């Protein structure tokens, strides 16, 4: 442990000799210390290395877990013969539409519920009730109502997305400091300016929490929907591969889902960092 000489007289360590300045032991550090650059990639890279090494050594059953290069080769084949682009596009479209609808609904409902007592009375309880029902449990009913086409899939994804968005945006909205509301009154803000300058920016931190949960939720909903009743899309591709015992195709599907999830989460984080730039000044 390093020791430093200081001129402070208030110290716990006893002076070693008369006339000598007391030495202060530097305290044991309890925080984890500085973050290494790109450290979050280390774990996944280690897993990948292990996988490749085990495959090369022949200790993995290629029918159960094919080698990384087999998966990549299969991905290449699927891409060039046109199956993969079509399936990916179909999946992206479903997730995109469902997400857009869920996002709009979540934000509008949170605003309506947070800004008026009537809205709160009508909306908040209903959404809480909706939240208590597992959305994926609604699938049979939605198939009866909307048929087995695209509409029902988009509807389910929209529901999966709107709930976390509503809950977090609404919580942030009702948590806006009442002193800022008072300020808005003093400054004579119109209702519209009040919403634009105080309510929306104040609710943004919660909105982004909801957004990230919503993005993850939309992929989750997609996987389930495409594996139980679909005739196209990534999940369908994987479901078919299961019937033919093509574990490499399943892994390709999982890989793409993973990439989708990672990329969308990073995009949301990036936007969040830019939009909530003012928050960094507080944490510093």
């Amino acid at each position, binding site marked *: 442990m390093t020791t430093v000489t200081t001129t402070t007289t208030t110290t716990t360590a006893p002076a070693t000799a008369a006339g000598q300045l007391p030495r202060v032991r530097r305290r044991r550090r309890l925080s984890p210390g500085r973050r290494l650059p790109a450290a979050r990639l280390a774990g996944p890279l280690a897993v990948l290395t292990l996988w490749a090494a085990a495959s090369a050594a022949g200790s993995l059953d290629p029918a159960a877990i094919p080698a990384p290069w087999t998966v990549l080769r299969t991905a290449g084949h699927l891409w060039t013969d046109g199956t993969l682009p079509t399936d990916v596009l179909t999946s992206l479209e479903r997730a995109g539409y469902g997400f857009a609808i869920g996002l709009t609904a979540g934000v509008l409902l949170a605003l309506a519920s947070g800004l008026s007592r009537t809205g709160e009375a009508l909306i908040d309880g209903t959404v809480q009730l909706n939240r208590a029902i597992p959305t994926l449990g609604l699938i049979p009913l939605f198939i009866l109502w909307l048929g087995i086409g695209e509409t029902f899939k988009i509807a389910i994804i929209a529901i999966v997305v709107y709930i976390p968005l509503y809950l977090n945006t609404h919580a942030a909205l009702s948590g806006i400091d009442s002193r800022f509301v008072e300020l808005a009154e*003093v400054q004579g803000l119109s209702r519209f300016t009040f919403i634009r300058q105080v309510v929306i920016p104040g609710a943004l931190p919660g909105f982004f929490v909801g957004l990230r949960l919503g993005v993850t939720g939309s992929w989750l909903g997609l996987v389930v929907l495409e594996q139980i009743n679909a005739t196209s899309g990534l999940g369908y591709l994987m479901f078919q591969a299961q019937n033919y015992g093509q574990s490499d195709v399943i892994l390709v599907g999982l890989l793409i889902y993973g990439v989708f999830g990672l990329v969308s989460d990073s995009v949301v984080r990036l936007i969040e960092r830019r939009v909530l730039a003012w928050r960094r000044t507080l944490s510093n």
Partner: protein
Amino acid sequence: MAPHTEQLTRPAVQLRGLTRSFEGRTVLDGIDLDLPAGQFTALLGHSGSGKSTLLRAVAGLDHGVAGSGQLTAPERVSVVFQDSRLLPWRRVLENVLLGLDGKDAGARGRAALAEVGLKGRERAWPGELSGGEAQRAALARSLVREPELLLADEPFGALDALTRIRMHHLLRDLWQRHRPSVLLVTHDVDEAIVLADRVLVLDRGRIGLDLTIDHPHPRSYREPVLGEYRERLLAALGVTEDHR
């Protein structure tokens, strides 16, 4: 330099029988008060004496508070709070311009910031300002609207002693340039004496003392003449020799 000019004859704020109560407890008990236009008035009182209630009533911020009485106040009223109350998600200039529109708004906001000594900080986030700077920005925000009445609710209460003295000079300078009526709520007797031309003491919901301080500015805490005012104010606040 005499602050009393002919414009003082027209009252900016007029209270007649103003009563306010919270859950049956009377906080303001039939207050009659005229604040002449352009006068710098300080309102002293113990905590819980109702000074903030009075200020909030004049500002029109006391929604849902039971009360009666007549109250007239000017059209353009600005309030400075104890906390700077800057929106953390808006840059300093945007905070100053909050609720202001018009083509020259930006230029006026910049000028107001320059006036309080924050030139060059327009693009800063409120979180980057020190306590004193934040309160300066809040002053700029209240001044940019050219208020006829400036209400200040212990605006320097959260500042350190050195910053507070600098802010006293700034507020007095700004008042001299813009001449709004000022009602400064404070519990600091010295602050009231140094800044105001008239000091009111609020005691059990009524104006217990109405003291005109006729002494040239700038004033210092150390001037012996001010000591007499101080004694009278402290007596009105119930602080006697053996309490000190």
